[in-house]
C-alpha cells in the first residue's frame, strides 16, 4: 500500500559526521529511511547492515550465456550451416573462436548487468524521483528518516547531537 511519506532529514558536510550519525541512530534503534551520498563512503554499508550486492552473480551468468551463445553459434555456423575453410584450418577451429567468445562474454555481461541494475533500482526512461534536497546531488551527505517509522523527537535529537548542518522536512508523494 502506497502512502505519502513525511521525511525528516539532516545534511552533513563531512562523511565522518554522517558515519557517526548513522551509528548513533542505530544505537537508538531508529529505523533509517535512507542515506544519500555524493560518493561511496567506506564503512557505510556494513554500518547500515546492507548485504553485498548480487549484481556480479548476475554478471557471471550473463557472461556464461554470452560465451555459450558465441561458442555454440560459431560451432554450428562453421561446421553445419556454412562450412568454409579458412587458411587451411579445420572447420571447427576452436582457437579462432576464442577472441569472439571473449568479446560476446563481455558484451552480454555488460549489457545484462546494466539492464538488471536499472530494473532492480526501479530506474528507467521517464522515471523521475523527487530529490529531498538539491545539495544532495552536489556536496552534502544526507541521513533521512520516515516520520511514520521513527520517533521524531529522537530523530531530531540524533541529528542535533551529530552536528547536522541543516535539518529539513519534506513530503514525498506516493
Amino acid at each position, binding site marked *: 500500500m502506497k502512502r505519502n511519506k513525511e521525511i525528516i532529514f539532516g545534511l552533513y558536510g563531512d562523511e565522518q559526521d554522517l558515519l557517526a550519525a548513522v551509528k548513533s541512530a542505530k544505537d537508538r534503534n531508529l529505523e533509517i529511511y535512507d542515506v544519500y551520498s555524493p560518493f561511496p563512503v567506506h564503512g557505510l554499508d556494513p554500518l547500515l547492515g546492507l548485504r553485498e550486492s548480487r549484481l*556480479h552473480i548476475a554478471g*557471471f551468468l550473463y557472461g556464461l550465456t554470452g560465451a555459450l551463445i558465441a561458442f555454440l553459434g560459431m560451432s554450428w555456423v562453421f561446421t553445419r550451416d556454412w562450412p568454409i575453410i579458412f587458411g587451411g584450418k579445420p572447420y571447427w577451429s576452436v*582457437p579462432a573462436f576464442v577472441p569472439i567468445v571473449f568479446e560476446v562474454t563481455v558484451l552480454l555481461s555488460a549489457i545484462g548487468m546494466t539492464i538488471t541494475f536499472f530494473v532492480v533500482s526501479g530506474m528507467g526512461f521517464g522515471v523521475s524521483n523527487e530529490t529531498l534536497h538539491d545539495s544532495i546531488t552536489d556536496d552534502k551527505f544526507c541521513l533521512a528518516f520516515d516520520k511514520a517509522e521513527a520517533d521524531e523527537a529522537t530523530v531530531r535529537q540524533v541529528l542535533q547531537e551529530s552536528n547536522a548542518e541543516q535539518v529539513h522536512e519534506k513530503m514525498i508523494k506516493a
Partner: protein
Amino acid sequence: MNRFEFSGKLRITLLIGIGIGLLSMILTYFIGDDDLNSRFWSNFLHNSSFFTGISLMAVFFIAASVTAWAGWYVVFKRLWESFSIFLFAGLILMTILGIGNYFQWHFLYHWADDGSVAHDAVLKGKSAFLNKNWYLVGGLLIMGIWIFFRQKMRRLSIMEEKQIMGDYSIHQKLRIYSAVFLPIAGFSSAAMIWLWLMSLDAHWYSTLYAWYTASSWFVALVAMVIITLLFLKKLGYYEQVTDEHIHDLGKFLFAFSVFWAYLWFSQFMLIWYANVGEETVYFKIRKDEYSWLFYGNVVINFVVPFFALIANSFKRHKLWLVIISAVVFVGHWLDFFLMIKPGVLHTAHELIGHGIENEEVLMHHHHLPAGFGFPGLFEVGTFIGFLSLFLFLVFSSLGKAGLVSQADPYIEESLHHHV
C-alpha cells in the same frame, strides 16, 4: 612484534631443503644424466632463471607502486623488498652459466656451439646478439643495474625511518629511482629473457615471449608473497595486515593470471593462425610430445585461478587463497619447464650427432629421456633446494629491518586500507 626473528626451527627446515636440492643436483650430475649433462644444466637454468625473475619482479612491483602513489601494499612493503635479495644469488648463478658457455661445461645453447653456427645461416644471422660475450657481459651488466636499483631503493626505504615526520625528501628520491627503473626493467628484462630462455630454441622467435615470461614471473611472485605473508601472520607477525590487504593480493593473483593467459593465448594464436613453419615448430613439439604439460599449463595457470578466485568471498578465504597460490606457483614453475626442456633436448640431439631426421624418429618411437618429458624426482628435489634457498635469503633479509615501516608517507593509508 615489529622485528622478524628468523627462528632456528625455520632455519633448519630451510637448510634441509637446500640440502635436498644439493643432493638432487649432485645425483642428477653423476647418475641419470646424458653425456652432455643436459639434465643437470637445464634444471640449473630452469630454477635460476625462474627465481631470479621473481626477484626482479619484486623490485619492479615496488617501483611501479611507488610511481603510482599506491598505498595499500605499504604495511608489508618490507616483504616485497626482501624478495629482491635473490638477485644477488641470480647474478652468481647466471654468471656460472655464462662462463660455462666458454668452457663447454654445458651445451644448453645451440648458438654457443661454434661448429653449428658456422654452418647455420639462421644462427649466424643472430650471432650479433646471441653470442657468449653478450650472454656473460650483457648479463653481468644488466643484472648489475638491477642490483644497483634494488640496493638504492632498499636503502632509501630504510633511511626513511630516521626522518622527521613530514619530511618526505627521501621518498621524493625513491620516486625518481622508481620512475627511472621502470623503463630500464621493461627493456632489460626482455633482453635477458631472450638470452636466457628464448634462445634455447635458437631458430625460433616470438615477439610476445618476453612479456609472456615476465608475466609468469609476476604471477609466481604474487603467489609467493601471499603464501609467505600468511605464513608470517600465522607466526604472529604482521597483525596490521587485514583481510582487505589479502583480498587485494588475491585480486592481483587473479588479474595477472588472466593477463598471463591473455599473453599465452596471443602468442599461440598468432603463430597458429599465421601457419609459418619456422614459428609453429615451437608449439608443434610441445603439443605432440608434451601434451599433458601443454594443456595442463593452461588449466593450472588460467582455468583454476580464474574460477577459484572469481568471487569476492573466495579471495578473502585465507586457506583457499594459500592453496590456489601454491597451485599457481608450481604451475608457473611447470610453465618454465615446458619453455626450457624441449629446446635443450633438441640442442643435445643436434650436438650428439643425430640429424633432424633421426631426431624425428627418436621423438616418435622412444620415450623422452628422464627429466625431459615430465619433472622427475631430481627435478622436484632441485626445485625444493632453490625454493629453500630463495626463502632462506628472503627471511634473512626480512630480519634486517622493522617489519612495518613507520615513516613511509603512505603508511597511514595502508593501515586503514579498505577495499
